[in-house]
């Protein structure tokens, strides 16, 4: 996976959510109240390159910043720091027409099959609005185009006059996919796109993703907390913990044996249908708040192997083998 130029490149991308003190709070702070701006370090210094046609899985526990990263990539949120490139072009601040066009090539599929569709629009409008606005199709051809897109996600074109509430969850997710596909994207960010679906429906949608990838040469950033799904679908897996990438590895290698202690713990907890009558031996503790992450390695309070250095120095993401990266001080020891 070392294509000369990645399709999407992230260089030191960070996203912080800052809540500044308002006037009253500032006065209070003056008067000695312990108040300061609250900063959520949702995503911290992420470097990542995604090659064309690749499926990259992004896993991590709730609140670790997966969705935020996905949104930054999809251009919904601006990055606080760092650079995003698409086909080598900087799209960090989608200013120029060209950058906008590039940004349009990256689309997002959302988690919630209910909240992600505008309840007031018919399917045809949901799918057809953006291509029309961007002049991808004329008004005359729009109806046919919408039918075509709907068919490609496995929906009957006769559904075009319906409203979202008249669909089941799986079908809605397909409408969401159709909406994204309608602007002819090359890169899809799927944020937990199957998490809300039943197993049987989930399988249908996963199959659809794989099928579309073949048909339209799509590249995926597939966000999920379900390691099974990620393992099934992706070529490479990125594991995040508290806003930072802790390990990147090709799927096979990762599941064969993870490097980072957190990744290992995570994999160990994955329940599999073929592992019966397990005796559970969980990782202790919970994810710390991103409001004040622990110093040093963010995982050290829960890490069974933590050494003194972990408490003070933040480990950098280093290549440990070709195509494999890990951020752990233990790698430096041996």
């Amino acid at each position, binding site marked *: 996976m070392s294509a000369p130029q990645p399709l999407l490149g992230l260089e030191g991308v960070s996203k912080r959510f800052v809540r500044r003190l*308002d006037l009253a709070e500032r006065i209070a702070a003056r008067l000695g109240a312990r108040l300061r701006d609250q900063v959520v370090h949702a995503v911290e210094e992420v470097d990542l390159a995604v090659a064309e046609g690749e499926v990259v899985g992004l896993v991590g526990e*709730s*609140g670790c910043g997966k969705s935020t990263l996905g*949104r930054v990539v*999809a*251009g*919904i949120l601006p990055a606080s720091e760092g650079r995003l490139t698409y086909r080598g072009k900087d799209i960090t601040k989608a200013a120029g027409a060209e950058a*906008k066009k590039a*940004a*349009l090539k*990256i*689309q*997002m599929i*959302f*988690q*919630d*099959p*209910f*909240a*992600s*569709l*505008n*309840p*007031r629009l*018919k399917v045809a409008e949901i799918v057809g*609005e*953006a291509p029309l*606005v*961007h002049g991808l199709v004329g008004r005359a051809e729009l109806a046919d185009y919408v039918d075509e897109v709907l068919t490609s996600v496995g929906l009957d074109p006769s559904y075009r*006059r*319906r*409203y979202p*509430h*008249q*669909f*089941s*969850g*799986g*079908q809605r997710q397909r409408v*969401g996919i159709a*909406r*994204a596909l309608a*602007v002819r994207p090359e890169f899809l960010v799927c944020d937990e796109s199957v998490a*809300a*679906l*039943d197993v049987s*429906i989930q399988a249908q949608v996963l199959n659809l993703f794989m099928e579309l990838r073949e048909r339209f040469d799509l590249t995926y950033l597939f966000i999920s907390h379900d390691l099974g799904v990620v393992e099934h679908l992706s070529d490479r897996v990125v594991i995040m913990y508290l806003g930072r990438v802790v390990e990147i590895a090709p799927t096979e290698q990762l599941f064969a044996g993870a490097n980072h202690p957190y990744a290992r713990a995570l994999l160990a907890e994955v329940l599999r249908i073929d592992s019966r009558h397990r005796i559970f031996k969980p990782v202790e503790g919970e994810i710390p708040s991103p409001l004040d992450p622990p110093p040093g390695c963010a995982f050290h309070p829960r890490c069974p192997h933590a050494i003194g250095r972990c408490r003070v120095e933040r480990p950098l993401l280093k290549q440990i083998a070709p195509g494999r990266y890990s951020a752990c001080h233990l790698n430096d020891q041996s």
Partner: protein
Amino acid sequence: MSEPDPGLSSGAVVAEPETLHAPPPRLSSPLARLALDFCASRPAVAGLAVILVVAVAAIFAPLIVPQNPYDLAQLDIMDGTLPPGSPSYAFGTYWLGTDVQGRDMLSAIVYGLRISLLVGSVSVAFALVIGSAVGLVAAFFGGGLDSLLMRIVDIQLSFPAILVALILLAIFGNGVDKVIIALVIVQWAYYARAVRGSALVERRKEYIDAAVCLGLGTRRVLFGHLLPNCLPPLIVIATVQVAHAVALEATLSFLGVGVPITEPSLGLLIANGFEYMMSGRYWISFFPGVALVVVIVAINLVGDRLRDLLNPRLQR
């Protein structure tokens, strides 16, 4: 007041069970569904019917009622305070009697309804437009602008409507236009706050993200996607506010700072008639009062039904 603890909402994104089934494809448009559900409540339908009848009567008042009670040339004080059913020389019968100026009460009530409804709906319409624009802008752009606008709203709302209106009208003087202005001033903030509230909720929903991601312009997102979805709670507030405005106008007129006496609204009719209540000439005050109450109840019945239908939390 702070917004609900974010920790509560974040974890609660769990699908409701019934939605994962194929819902029976019924009426397609949300409006048609609403209409059908609305009709399931008999009081609400009755309320709507009353509103329609009253509105038609008010709009076509000159064609319906025998007398223009605002035209002094048509009044004769010698016909003053006649009881209901008295014969009239100018036309058939004073079915609801006359007031002291010789005004046919039936005509006066219909014309009064006209003023009351005009004041109610026009003030609500203006307040709605102003308020929702402010609220939407505040919610979408956030930051300092949001704080500023919401502080103004807070200040406005920290004063009871009746007092503000009272003072304003004391300053402006009587007049339908002035009552409307006063009512707009006391009402807009409700809408601003309501729209901002629901816009903040809607803005966090993924379909807005999707629209942004699809590169649709800010204006399109704001007015095409965000605004329509903030409307349902607004409709409810607006409906109920019309009733509120009608009542407020009546109250102000009752206190003597509302519409001018020559063009009495229902409130003023009641106020004028009340002096005669004790002396047994109940009709001058009683019938306008009944009309006023019926209209307000009807509007509230409709508003109540809409509230039930449009409240997502009670939708089961």
